[in-house]
């Protein structure tokens, strides 16, 4: 009796163990296939037509420009990391690419942030770095030290829209106004007019209305928050902090914005908040604001401060005249691309019509044709 119990204990423990352990083993060996199949299935609708289009012609004629890859024969590993802003585009491309290859290539896309991405990229740990800004000099040095050669490829434009209610008479704001309304020094300001003094002090000639000010915008964790801060507020904010006029945070860095605004990670909530109140103010990605033009008003932005007001639309964002826009890049390790046909094919696909269509799917503004051509020739050449 006792003996049996003793045998039963380890057995039961092992049962728990193997129940879990075995599941894994089975899962991984038996399920890579289904997992892959389903991904293929999911993206097949959008992808197979593209695959047919790109692979069929080379059979008849020689491929124009590239040696049309047979995606299904590819093998290997592709690691993409970097900006969380670019991540949605790369992830969509990777999903579609995964469908094309039939799941024979291991692709991973992650978004820890542009700087972290460059760290991994320059250490040779990643094949592609997503970036929401151009590479910095010290990062170029780091890459050179790490023996990493790279190609800089612009893939999309990230435009931000400053939005308010359609009932609000304000049409245009400059950076000084935005700083006076949203910057750290405006903590507690509850009326647009109360920000007038600071805006004027900073050189603005805009007349701010006598309206209750409610700000609804993305929170600090958001890439859109960072973009907005860096493009619109940072310059004035840093200068004011240097003069000791704006507050510093615990790390002696300038505080980015006022803390007393409604923040939401959900763009829909922001749109609702902005549309529902006359004196509202906020910002979201351009594509999202553009879709909701009936609910919110897209304000013009004067990036120079001389009264030239540019309203965001696909044209002004693409030609660079709208100031609250930035180019999104991918940086490709060219040494690895030469060794790894899968990486080469992945970037080829990224820049193909099918691949680059994901820019719009991810709610960003596509590059104008000439810039896209420049990117493509930068890659091929």
């Amino acid at each position, binding site marked *: 009796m006792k003996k049996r119990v003793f045998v039963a204990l380890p057995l039961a423990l092992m049962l728990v*163990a193997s129940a879990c352990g075995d599941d*894994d083993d089975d899962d991984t060996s038996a399920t890579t296939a289904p997992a892959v199949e389903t991904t293929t299935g999911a993206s097949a609708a959008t992808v197979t037509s593209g695959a047919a289009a790109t692979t069929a012609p080379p059979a008849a004629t020689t491929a124009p420009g590239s040696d049309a890859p047979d995606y299904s024969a590819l093998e290997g590993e592709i690691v993409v990391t970097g900006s969380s802003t670019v991540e949605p585009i790369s992830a969509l491309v990777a999903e579609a690419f995964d469908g094309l290859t039939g799941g024979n290539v291991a692709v991973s896309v992650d978004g820890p942030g542009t700087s972290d991405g460059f760290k991994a990229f320059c250490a040779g740990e990643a094949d592609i770095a997503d970036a929401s800004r151009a590479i910095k000099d010290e990062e170029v040095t780091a890459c050179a030290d790490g023996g990493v050669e790279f190609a800089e490829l612009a893939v999309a434009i990230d435009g931000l829209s400053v939005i308010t209610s359609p009932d609000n008479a304000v049409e245009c704001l400059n950076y000084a106004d935005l700083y006076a309304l949203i910057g750290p020094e405006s903590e507690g300001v509850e009326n647009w007019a109360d920000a007038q003094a600071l805006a004027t002090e900073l050189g603005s000639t805009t007349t701010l209305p006598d309206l209750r000010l409610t700000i609804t915008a993305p929170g600090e964790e958001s890439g859109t928050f960072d973009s907005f801060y860096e493009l619109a507020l940072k310059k004035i904010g840093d200068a004011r902090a240097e003069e000791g006029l704006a507050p510093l945070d615990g790390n002696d860095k300038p505080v980015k914005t006022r803390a007393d605004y409604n923040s939401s990670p959900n763009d829909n909530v922001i749109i609702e908040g902005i549309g529902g109140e006359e004196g509202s103010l906020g910002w979201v990605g351009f594509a999202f604001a553009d879709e909701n033009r009936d609910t919110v008003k897209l304000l013009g932005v004067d990036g120079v401060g001389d009264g030239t007001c540019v309203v965001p639309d696909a044209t002004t964002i693409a030609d660079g005249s709208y100031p609250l826009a930035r180019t999104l890049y991918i940086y490709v390790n060219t040494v690895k691309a030469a060794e790894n046909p899968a990486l080469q094919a992945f970037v080829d696909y990224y820049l193909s019509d099918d691949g680059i269509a994901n820019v719009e799917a991810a709610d960003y503004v596509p590059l104008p044709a000439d810039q896209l051509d420049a990117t493509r020739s930068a890659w091929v050449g």
Partner: protein
Amino acid sequence: MAAAAPPANPASITTLAVERSLASRKRDWLGQVFQVVLLLSLILSLAIIVFLLSNVLGGAWRVWTDRGTDFLTEGGSRQAEAAGVWQGIRGTLTLVGFVVLLAFPIGIASAIYLEEYAPDNTLTKFINVNIRNLTGVPSVVYGLLGLAVFVRTFGLDRNDEGGLTGGKSVISAGLTLAVLVLPIVIITSAEAIRAVPRSIREAGYGVGASRWEVTRMLVLPSAAPGILTGTVLAISRAMGEAAPILLIGANTGFFSSGNQSFVEQLQGTFTALPAVIFGWARETSEFRDVTAAAIFVLLVITVLANGTAVWLRNRFEKQW
């Protein structure tokens, strides 16, 4: 009631109660307030649970009716309508596998040594106190430990092809979680072993059994239910931890494993259910339902694990 209650002298208790209720009404009133407060506390905690569950269940139900089992078999995706939890489930089960294979044997063995073999001196007490303290260390700290030791030290970057753990891999995360639950396993197992009556051991020694035989044949089997409970707590903890695996580098974007071998997959990119939930919760509102569904899947797996253990424990209790 009073007659059925165990205390020493039922008759005197009854007398006392009758006297009091005759002498004053105040106590009765207080007693009722107390009862209402207790009931309200129960209702409040139930209401919170019901609210959370209904929130999650609503989303999970919509996903289930729209997608069926697709949701369970698909991998990660940037499109809410195509996103599934398969990679998360696989990752979580692999992590549990590591915990079971590493933390349990080591933890139970340590507990047996501490309780049955170690001399009862200052050093043993010191070690015991420290293990107890380790159970209170926040999981983020274990995550940082895992990042420093398993990801950086043992996982060289993939150019060197030699990293034991493969860096940001399910191996690193599994080892980290195993270390994280180890103190829990040791403490609960040690308590279960300590709870075995001394008389059982003495009976064993009395018939000439060695310490090893007593431990193996008497102490361990009777401590088994308690040990199992502890190990299940450890599994549930390991399945629910998000902070350590996010620090280790669980993927919250997209990844596919290609035609990598089993070992390569263990060393490659990974994710787990808490990381999947974390990633989706940051997404736009389209992801709200799949996030709820992923939470539900994690809940179900946890409940299943707990249920299995309770069942096993009950079986053992009957046998002994």
